[in-house]
């Protein structure tokens, strides 16, 4: 990894790997699917849970590749994994802030990235070991979040959402992997909906800079 030049594509690929594992972990923790349907796997030298159902895995892979497409365009600000109740009320959101990713035009997607420190020496773009360690820590925190959060109500479902930056175009072309949703007023109306934010971890390894936190709404009770 040190020899080959890291491109934006590599960064996004590393992130999507992490996102896939994170989704599986969240599904396990919040018991969206029965916990017996998960098998133990290993990622980043860490024991993680992976769902076995082919449709579930397929859905997650599709969602993650749609996120990847948007990430390559550089329009994504945040990725959210939202847990809904049966009545489509969001219970909690697992947020991943990716606004700090480097952006590049389509032509530059495969251009090697380089960053020089103040002294002029090369700074590693994607230090693999460091990044893995931080991913491992984030997953470990996510895995234990199930105990800090309130247990979700029965029959919850989940989805993946992305919040876009103000610049750029929304992906509403045909075929449409994404469903446009209007921005809710939640940030303003604090009196109606009480939100609790639980920080998880921030990852900062070379160019891979992201933050992870959990937003809980009081609707659950």
């Amino acid at each position, binding site marked *: 990894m040190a020899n080959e030049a890291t491109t934006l594509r590599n960064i996004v690929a590393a992130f999507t790997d992490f996102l896939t594992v994170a989704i599986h972990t969240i599904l*396990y*923790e919040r018991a969206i699917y029965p916990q017996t349907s998960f098998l*133990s796997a290993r990622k980043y*030298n*860490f*024991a993680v*849970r992976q769902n076995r159902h082919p449709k579930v895995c397929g859905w997650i892979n599709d969602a993650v590749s749609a996120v990847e497409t948007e990430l390559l365009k550089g329009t994504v600000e945040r990725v959210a994994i939202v847990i809904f109740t049966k009545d489509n009320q969001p219970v909690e959101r697992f947020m991943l802030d990716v606004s700090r990713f480097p952006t590049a035009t389509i032509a530059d997607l495969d251009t090697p990235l380089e960053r020089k420190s103040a002294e002029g020496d090369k700074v590693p773009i994607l230090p693999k070991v460091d990044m893995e360690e931080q991913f*491992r820590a984030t997953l*470990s*925190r996510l*895995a*234990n*979040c*199930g*105990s*800090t959060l309130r247990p979700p109500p029965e029959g919850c479902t989940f989805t993946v959402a992305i919040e876009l930056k103000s610049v750029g175009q929304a992906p509403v072309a045909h075929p449409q992997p994404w469903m446009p949703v209007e921005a809710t007023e939640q940030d303003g109306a604090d009196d109606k909906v009480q939100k609790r934010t639980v920080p998880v971890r921030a990852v900062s390894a070379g160019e891979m800079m992201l933050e992870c936190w959990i937003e809980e709404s009081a609707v659950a009770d």
Partner: protein
Amino acid sequence: MAQEYTEYLAINVLNEQQLVSYRSLSRALKVHSNLAKQMLYEFHRKQNAKRPGSVHATYLITGTRRPESPSQTNGAHSQEDGGDTVMQSSPPLPGSSAPQHEEDAEEPVSVRSVLLVKEEHLEQAKATFESITGIHIYSLQANGLSDVQSLTECNRKITASYASEDPLQAWKQYGTIQNPNVKRRTQRRGPPPPAPVAKAAEPKTKPLAPTTKPTVLERQASKESKASQESKPASKPTSKPSSAKATPEPAKKPATVKRQDSDIFKSFAKGRAKPKKQDSQSSAEATTPAAAEPEDEPMGGFSDEDDDAEDGAADIDEVPQEPEGKSKKEREADLQAMMDQEDEIMEDAAEAIPDKTAAEEDEGAIDRPVSRQAEEPAKETVTVENGRRRGRRRVMKKKTVKDEDGYLVTKEEAAWESFSEDEPAPKKLKTAPATSTNKPTAAGKKGAAKAGQGNIMSFFSKK
């Protein structure tokens, strides 16, 4: 002391919300594991007295499970009622597996189990036990443990952070189980270290794994550093000193001599390419330098001894003792003489090997560190399938580069390669007598013929 652990646990469990197992606590505070377990218990009790439910514990129960109905037990795996158990250890007593389902009469099968339970399931789990031989806290966490397998992370962290400690000394401090028959591979034959008393900790296989791992690394270290006298700069992160001096005190902290390039030497000797085998015949090496011969011979001698010894004594059983007539001092002197001899050759051929002076200083020290990084494969692997040996091994490859003055310089470099050769090779090696007084040359040629493809010895083989 009391303050330390409270502080440590408060920081890690409460503030950082990490998982702390008794093992990580004992390594961090350098205390015995049993003491660490007590610390965990105390902390748990105090914190929950102050604020109930602030600290959760996972318990480890060892004991004999109550016999279950025949329909459930099927020999190897019997599911736990609680559904949250992770570990099943020892298999049921023989005689219970097969006929179980056939017989109507219930055979009282006692299963000795080791069980990890969360604290909420503790009473329930205890009820399934007929008699409990041991129970202690395994880990503490701030909130409940959602996934038991996240406990594996504790052990990984331990091996990562504390890899530099020598388990043969650390076991006493931490209370890991020690196998009395285990001994570090030494270069010189001497009285084996006295059998340490095995600690009566609960049956955990993990401590054994770390002890065997360093022995493997040790063997590899001693193998490399057999007779080469160059010392690589001490830039390796995990330096495991290997005690070649078999002194009565196993706890002696050996000094470190870095002899990295015996691999290079070996190819020098007879063009052989089997550097990383274990060295059990350290005495052999010590004796052979006494012979006054060209550089090749002693090197060849070592390699051969190693090969024969390695395969013959692979079970670590009977390594014939070096005749005690040769005193330690004499051996050291011989080694020293050899070291001085070998220096010149190494200068030309080897890559940058800075301090040879360190080699001379270390005359007394027969110990060398494991200079391999943890990531590098520790051993050559050999698998036998379908009558062919396959595997990976280190070979010396020659690289010719042009110097700045325009001279061509040939350097030796160690590289890993996969090899595959016919089965008969290992058998031949094993039959070679594993004594210390081999004829170096003949055996060397034979040995080389097995290992190498494309080395000089192939010229001599197949006679």
